[in-house]
C-alpha cells in the first residue's frame, strides 16, 4: 500500500486527472465478478409458479442457492422470468420459511416443536385409525370398500411423481376424497 493506492496520486500521474473513473476505482471494484460465474454448480430447473413452465438455472455455491434466473435455452421462456419467477431465490431462501416441524395439540394456543420421525409415526397412526373409523364396505347396499375418514387436498405445484404416489397410496388405502387445486 504505497502512495499509488491514493487515488489523488493516480489522478496526478494517470489518464484520469478529473478522477472520474480509472483513478477513483477501489480494489473491491476491480475484483467484482458476477457471482453466477463463481458458482460451484448450475442446476437446470423449472419455475414453480404458473404453468407456462419457464426454464430456470439454479446457481449453487457452498450448498446455498445464490441465484436463480431464466434459462435462455428454453424455447418457452427464452431466459425470461416474471416477477414471481424472478423472486424464486427469495422463495427458496426466505428467512420466514418454516423449516422445522411444528405441532399444535388440540385446544392449544401455541405451537410446540416435534421431532420429524415422531410426527411421521403419529400421522401414520392417525391415518390408520381414521381409515378404520370412516370405513365403508357398502354404501346403500352397493360395495364401495372405501374410507371417508380422511381427505387430501394438494396444491398444483406438486410434481407428477408426487401426485402419482399420493394417488396410489391414498387409493390403496381406500380414500376417495383426494383432491387438488386443479378442481379449483
Amino acid at each position, binding site marked *: 500500500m504505497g502512495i499509488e493506492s491514493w*487515488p489523488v496520486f493516480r489522478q496526478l500521474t*494517470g*489518464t*484520469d*486527472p*478529473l*478522477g*472520474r*473513473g*480509472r*483513478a*477513483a*476505482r*477501489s480494489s*473491491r*471494484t476491480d475484483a*467484482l*465478478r*458476477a*457471482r*453466477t*460465474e463463481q458458482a460451484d454448480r448450475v442446476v437446470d430447473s423449472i419455475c414453480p409458479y404458473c404453468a407456462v413452465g419457464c426454464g430456470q438455472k439454479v446457481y449453487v455455491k457452498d450448498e446455498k442457492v445464490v*441465484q*436463480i*434466473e*431464466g434459462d435462455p435455452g428454453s424455447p418457452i421462456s427464452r*431466459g*425470461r*422470468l*416474471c*416477477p*414471481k*419467477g*424472478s*423472486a424464486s*431465490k*427469495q422463495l427458496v431462501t426466505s428467512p420466514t420459511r418454516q423449516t422445522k416441524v411444528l405441532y399444535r395439540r388440540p385446544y392449544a394456543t401455541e405451537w410446540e416443536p416435534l421431532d420429524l420421525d415422531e410426527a411421521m409415526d403419529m400421522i401414520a397412526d392417525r391415518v390408520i385409525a381414521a381409515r378404520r373409523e370412516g370405513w365403508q364396505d357398502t354404501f346403500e347396499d352397493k360395495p364401495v370398500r372405501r374410507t371417508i375418514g380422511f381427505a387430501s387436498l394438494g396444491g398444483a405445484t406438486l410434481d407428477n411423481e408426487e401426485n402419482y404416489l399420493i394417488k396410489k397410496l391414498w387409493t390403496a388405502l381406500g380414500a376417495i376424497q383426494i383432491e387438488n387445486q386443479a378442481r379449483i
Partner: protein
Amino acid sequence: MSNSLYGPLPDVAEDAGYTGAPERRGFFTDTSVCIGCKACEVACKEWNAVPDDGFALTGMSYDNTGALGASTWRHVAFVEQTRPRQVGDGGDTRWLMASDVCKHCTHAACLDVCPTGALIRTEFATVVVQSDVCNGCAYCVSACPYGVIDRREDDGRAWKCTLCYDRIGDGLEPACAKACPTDSIQYGPLDELRERARARLDALHEEGVTEARLYGEDENDGVGGAGAFFLLLDEPEVYGLPPDPVVTTRDLPAMWKWAGGAALALAGGVALSFLGRR
C-alpha cells in the same frame, strides 16, 4: 478536454481515463411493449440484494414502489388515461407502463459532484457507486436531475442502478433486461440500441402511433445523451421524468467565477472595514 462538462462526448470512457475501453453499454427501454409486470424490479433486487422498500399501497394505479430510490433501482410507472366517457361508451382508456432506471448520463452530475470518488464511470461508460467508498455525503442525491440516486438511511450510503456492473463485466446481461418478458428492456452497445430505437420509432409512427418519442437518446441534450434511454408514448413528465434536464455542472465554471468574485468581495469588504478610524 473538450465537452468534458457538457455537450456530446464521443468517448465517455476515455474521458474517465480508460484506454481501449469496450463499446459503451446501455439500456433501451421501449415502453410501448411494457406490460407492467415488474419482473425488472424483482430481478434487480434479487441480483443486487436490494432490500424491500416498504409495504404501502400508494393508490397510484398499480405502482406501489412510487419512484426510483436507494432501494428501488428499477421502477415501473403506471399511468391511467381516459378521455371523457359515458356509461356504455367506454371512452378511450390507455394504461401506460414504463420501467424507469438510472440514466447513466454522458455527463453524470452525481458522479461529478461526488467528493470521494465513490461514484465512478466504468469502462462501459456506465455510472456506479462503490459502496466501499461512499461516505454518505448525499451530494449526488441533490445533483441528479432525474431524482434517481438516494441515500438509504439505515445504511448511510447512496445507492442506485449499477447496470449490473458485475454481470456485464462477465459478459452477462443486466438482471432486469434478462428477466423482461416482452423485451421492453433491452441491453447492449449503445450505438446499436440507438439504431434499433430509431427504427422502432419509425415503425410506430408508420402504425399511426404518432405520440411515440425517444427520450434521452439525443447526445445534444442537457446531459449529453443518456446511457439508458426510452421510447415513451407521452410527455416525459407524465411518467415522472424531467422534460429537459440539464446537468448542473454545465454551469460549474460560471459558478466558481461568481464564488470567486464573492470571495473577493468578502475580502474586500473586510479590507474596507479596516480603512478609516479605529
